[in-house]
């Protein structure tokens, strides 16, 4: 079956612009996660959805970052007024409810802020 997909695969934007990153989880996976992977660093947890609710937003680095999920499926991560330090690969993962440990990751969106 289809895996987790993310779009776009690459995004170059100018500092100060807003960007939207999209994640399509595996069908039937109720849990969805967003991570950020910066050069030379590990994965940084951003936010977690169970269904359309986000019980854990603790990883969002600032109020410029927001995410939503509709219909228990697609999720969008929005970064407003992008800064150069936002440049990273943004990864999305999904899992069955209660199976946090077995997350299936998408290929990521590489964001470059110039």
């Amino acid at each position, binding site marked *: 079956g289809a895996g987790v997909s993310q779009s776009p695969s690459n995004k170059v934007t100018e500092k100060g612009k807003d960007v939207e990153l999209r994640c399509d989880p595996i069908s039937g996976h109720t849990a969805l996660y967003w991570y950020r992977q910066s050069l030379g660093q590990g*994965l940084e947890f951003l936010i977690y959805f169970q269904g359309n609710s986000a019980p*854990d937003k603790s990883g969002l680095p600032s109020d410029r970052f927001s995410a939503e999920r509709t219909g228990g499926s697609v999720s969008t991560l929005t970064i407003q007024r992008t800064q150069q330090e936002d440049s990273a690969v943004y990864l999305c993962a999904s899992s069955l409810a209660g199976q*946090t440990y077995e997350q299936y990751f998408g290929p990521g969106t590489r964001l470059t802020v110039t």
Partner: protein
Amino acid sequence: AQSVTQLDSHVSVSEGTPVLLRCNYSSSYSPSLFWYVQHPNKGLQLLLKYTSAATLVKGINGFEAEFKKSETSFHLTKPSAHMSDAAEYFCVFSTDKLIFGTGTRLQVFP
């Protein structure tokens, strides 16, 4: 606080020789630990998982890891490296979310 520490940022081995990627954890209770692999330009993939059953865990592609409580370690090993093993490997701690180590880049030379 729960955390994982990957002791080597880079490991280089020759094809056919053993692989050892080191990971230590810190936890006040029995942890759930995992190794994920990330091949270039590909998504992260679960390699193996430890969830308090057998301490020696076998994963995909011939990898295995041993949970040692006395040493607070969960090192990843493979008896014989293959060129296709070249990738970034992450030791991961699970609570209600995944906490990733900083990663170890494995290079395999012919």
